[in-house]
């Protein structure tokens, strides 16, 4: 539960946002994140974020599903409870392929959804500070982390110079927490 100081700049246009992100980064400030109402193509690259490893996790979940299916089915049908089904061999691999496939997909899908939620810190009851409510509507909200040495006035001026429509300084919880918000904020009219 660490409170931290952030400088927040809001933009109402993607075309303005991208150069601003570049300017802020070249000036040496650390952008915590940019909150956008929709997925913006190329913003992750502009922010210098590393490639997600979600797909690697997905591959591992998929392989786990394949292994689970093969070992479970082969154990059941050859050791635990062998049945004569249409005179087929007990180890009837072609007939198992659809189930192996389905289990691969199921493990990969469920695993990836849960990993995605974990990486984004999404769960029932989890709360996070909102830098600006309109980030879910029509505003691109850039949150910049401040250190002791950060000159907020300079930073605010930089944001304004780069086309921010709204700027402010917020001291806020940087991580998630369980519970409620101190006060329910109403959307600005």
């Amino acid at each position, binding site marked *: 539960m660490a409170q931290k100081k952030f400088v927040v700049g809001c933009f109402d246009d993607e075309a303005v946002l991208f150069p601003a992100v570049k300017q802020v980064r070249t000036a040496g400030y650390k952008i915590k994140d940019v909150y956008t109402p929709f997925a913006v*193509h190329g913003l992750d690259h502009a922010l210098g974020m590393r490639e997600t490893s979600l797909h690697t996790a997905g591959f591992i979940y998929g392989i786990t599903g394949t292994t689970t299916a093969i070992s479970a089915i082969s154990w059941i049908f050859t050791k635990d409870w062998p049945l004569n089904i*249409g005179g087929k061999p007990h180890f009837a691999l*072609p*007939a198992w392929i659809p189930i192996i496939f389905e289990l691969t997909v199921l493990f990969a899908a469920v695993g990836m959804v849960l990993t995605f939620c974990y990486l984004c810190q999404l769960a029932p009851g989890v709360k996070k500070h909102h830098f600006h409510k309109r980030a879910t509507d029509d505003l691109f909200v850039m949150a910049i982390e401040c250190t002791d040495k950060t000159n907020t006035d300079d930073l605010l001026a930089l944001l304004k110079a780069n086309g921010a429509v709204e700027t402010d300084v917020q001291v806020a919880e940087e991580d998630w927490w369980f519970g409620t918000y101190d006060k329910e904020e109403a959307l600005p009219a």
Partner: protein
Amino acid sequence: MASIKEQFEIPGRLKTWSYSLIGIGGAVLLYGMFTKGFSSDEHEQVHFWGTLMYNTIFWTLICNAAMFFLSFSAMAQAAWMQSFRRVPEAISTLVPVFGGITLMVLLYIIFGHKHHIYHWLDAEAVAKDPILKGKVGFLNPTFFVIWTTLTISLWSLFGYRMRQLNNQADVAPMDAPTAKAFNIQSMVRSGFFLVWFGLTVASTIPWLWMMSIDAHWYSTMYSWYTFASTFVAGMALIALWVVYLKNKGYLELTNNEHLHDIAKFMFAFSIFWTYLWFSQYMLIWYANIPEETVYFKHRVQGPYKAIFFLNLIINFLAPLLILMKRSAKRNYTLVALMAVVIIFGHWIDFYQMVMGSLMKEHVELGVLDFGILAFFVGVMIFFVAKALASKPLIAKYHPFLKESIIHHT
């Protein structure tokens, strides 16, 4: 666009390669034709004509797949492929060439009455055979000849008309109404090709040309299986030429975003091919009816066992595991390598589809097969290079070109 290299000049080494492949392959082809093709031994005849047949059908269909790619892209108004559209266009100019060879080979088989290849050519045997009698409306020489000729001519014609239309994009900038009319015209012309493609490659042609070798056997998956096989190999061939041209410093507007999408096609259609392979195999395995399993008996348990499983490994496991990663699909070396593997793999697939039915007792994959393959590769390189050099590499006034330049996956 002054800095763009628009004109492809055929490098000397490529010419040397294509001439030597044509020379070596042509020598093997002619030697095979005179020692085996025209010999009195039926086994030798079947060996030679079967080998020539699967090679020529394979190359005709993968070159036709390039036109299919252009047509469905035009129909979907896809723009991403415009920066390298000359490559599939150049490959598709081979349809009349390889189609002509295919037509000659098939007509020779029909009129030369090679009933050891097409059992249904034997009128006496058909008269005594209730199953073949039931198929006689479809499997008869007249229909075969007419439909084959019509098919190859219309593929060539509709492909030619698609390429002709696109020449407009080289001449002068288009204003909005012209570009719109161009786009509609391009969709109409691709529509003709696609409908005819559906009636031929996706249904009747594989039944006639290849499935009818096992005249008693049939599979409803067969044509789609053939289509998937040739389409994925066709995408691999496009990838190979794109990488080659990039390597020589051409196609500046094509980058690894485009390569990524081509490789996605190679990856996805390898999986699709496996899906059809499995659907065909599993149903027959499960039902276990003798007249259906006859097709797989000597492939799974007989001499073709090694090729049968090799087929699955190189056409399914290799693309699945190697092309799965995003970085692999954006890597020119890896995509080129996988393109070669995929083309070779589906060539092997065609080998077992045709020769597995013609020569059930033993596998004779050898000099004749690779020689004829070399001949077709040489001819392919020669004509594709010629077609690439005959036009600017970029259709610079194409209305979709800008969208292709800024393409981003």
